[in-house]
């Protein structure tokens, strides 16, 4: 185990070349990518929204269909960035050796990590937008303020990119990602207020959920989608930004160790 290079990241504008590379690949693989991040939430939306919606009616003054749609949008932004940061980064780092090829050019590890982080957030937006459109067509969304959620999708992507890339940096194989998805991503999806308000949980569970980032993403996206007033927007943005910053720093440090040995 080599010593950690904990210097602050020094990415250059060439980091955008990494984003461009990923956009070009994404365009080629558009079908599977959208089916994966679009199909599942739309099934939840149709199944649970129409099904449960009949019984539930409104939650906190929001029709359940809209409540659920806003939660699924936040969860999709989380999932897209997390899966890209884990599986795709790991593939490019190991099986495809893409980073080895790139590290023979003037780009450096810090550029790669910055580019991948930006790309994860970009992909969160790209794959969330179709769901926003479908939810609107299905009548879940009636407010133009929903468009203001788009930059939040980007922020949520940034927030989940760093931790996912850190997991990739430690992963010996794809199986390793199960720990992260089972222990963190799935519990957040179930408990952070996608399907029901966090306030219905026991207090101790509420505390844990509020330390994790997804509840803060939902606290921003839900009022924007439903056309309600935002509560404590600076707090929620602050939490997401803090996760994004710490995750990005850790990702840079641990990917450096993985690639430069």
């Amino acid at each position, binding site marked *: *185990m*080599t010593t950690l290079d904990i210097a602050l990241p020094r990415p250059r504008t*060439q980091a955008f*070349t990494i984003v*461009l*590379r990923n956009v*070009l*690949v994404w365009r*080629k*693989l558009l079908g599977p990518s959208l089916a994966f991040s679009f199909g599942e939430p739309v099934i939840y939306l149709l199944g649970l929204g129409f099904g449960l919606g009949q019984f539930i009616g409104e939650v906190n003054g929001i029709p359940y269909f809209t409540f659920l749609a806003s939660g699924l949008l936040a969860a999709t932004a989380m999932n897209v960035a997390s899966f890209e940061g884990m599986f795709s980064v790991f593939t490019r780092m190991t099986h*495809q*050796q*893409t980073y*080895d*090829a*790139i*590290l*023979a*050019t*003037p*780009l*450096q590890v810090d550029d790669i990590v910055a580019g991948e982080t930006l790309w994860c957030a970009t992909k969160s937006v790209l794959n969330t937008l179709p769901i926003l459109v479908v939810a609107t067509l299905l009548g879940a969304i009636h407010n133009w303020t929903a468009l203001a959620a788009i930059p939040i999708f980007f922020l949520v992507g940034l927030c989940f990119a760093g931790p996912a890339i850190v997991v990739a940096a430690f992963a010996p194989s794809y199986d390793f990602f199960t720990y992260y998805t089972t222990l963190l991503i799935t519990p957040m999806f179930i408990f952070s207020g996608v399907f029901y308000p966090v306030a219905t949980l026991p207090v101790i569970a509420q505390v844990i959920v509020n330390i994790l980032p997804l509840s803060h993403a939902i606290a921003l996206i839900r009022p924007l989608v439903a056309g309600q007033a935002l509560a404590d927007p600076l707090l929620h943005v602050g939490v997401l930004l803090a996760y994004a910053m710490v995750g990005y720093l850790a990702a840079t440090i641990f990917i450096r160790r993985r*690639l*430069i*040995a």
Partner: protein
Amino acid sequence: MGASVEPLSESKEFMPDSVIVARGLTKHFGAHQAVRGIDLDVPRGGCFGFLGPNGAGKTTTLRMILGQSPLTSGTLTVLGLPVPAGIREIRARTGVVPQADNQDPDFTVVENLRMYARYFGLKPAQVAGRIDELLGFLELADRKDARMRELSGGMKRRLSIARALINDPELIMLDEPTTGLDPQVRHLIWTRLRQLKSAGKTLLLTTHYMDEAERLCDQLVVIDRGRIVTQGSPRGLIREHIEPHVIEVQGEGIAILPVLEGLPGARLLSVGETHYCYAPELGPVLARLEASPELRYTHRAANLEDVFLKLTGHDLRE
């Protein structure tokens, strides 16, 4: 640019126009010493070879030259720039053909080249002509729009070489460029590498194919267990280390050695079921062999493989 190289009074062979200068280069991975004090002066122009068995430290040394592996100790200057401070410019002026092909599998041949050019800050419009030229040079013009999975191993390796030339590099580093390729492709690659040499490029080649090193390299070092064992030109090394006559005898070992033992000036070496007899004179060896008609043998000129076997031993390395 213009970073000066420290004066090196001890080194008798130091050349002011060296493309790579290394002094006391070491690399440790924990307790494992991959590179143990290497000095290098790679002259500008021509092909410089790194020869050595698997695990000798060749690839680690290449990775250090590229700034992909920090030095444990020693100094390293590439194209007049210090490693690691000058690494961005070093990489901008270097081309790399990696041991394992690592093109983007989702891109076509031409898309791979365009994307790689962008990493060097070159826009597609700037490199369109160059890409056509390189595809022609490596006989890939008709595979321009092929996906990676449609390419054979030889085509992928040729694409790796084209990609390494996209930035018109001064220094080209090739890590075992013809491993696993069929003879036709190896010959095509050798021809192209010789053309690059004539165009004034400096090639740095690692290989464990001795015929490849003999064909291409002007100078080479033999690396074993992280150290340079010897260096020189292929012919110089053969003359220096190997007797003029080599007789290879095939067969089970037990019966052969007594037949050839005790010849004046001869040296015997066994690798698996092949036995080598290195001798100053051919006559006495043949006289002995003809007395044992059950033995099959060939007489040939000494080559680099003999040097390699003599210097790196003949035990299996993995």
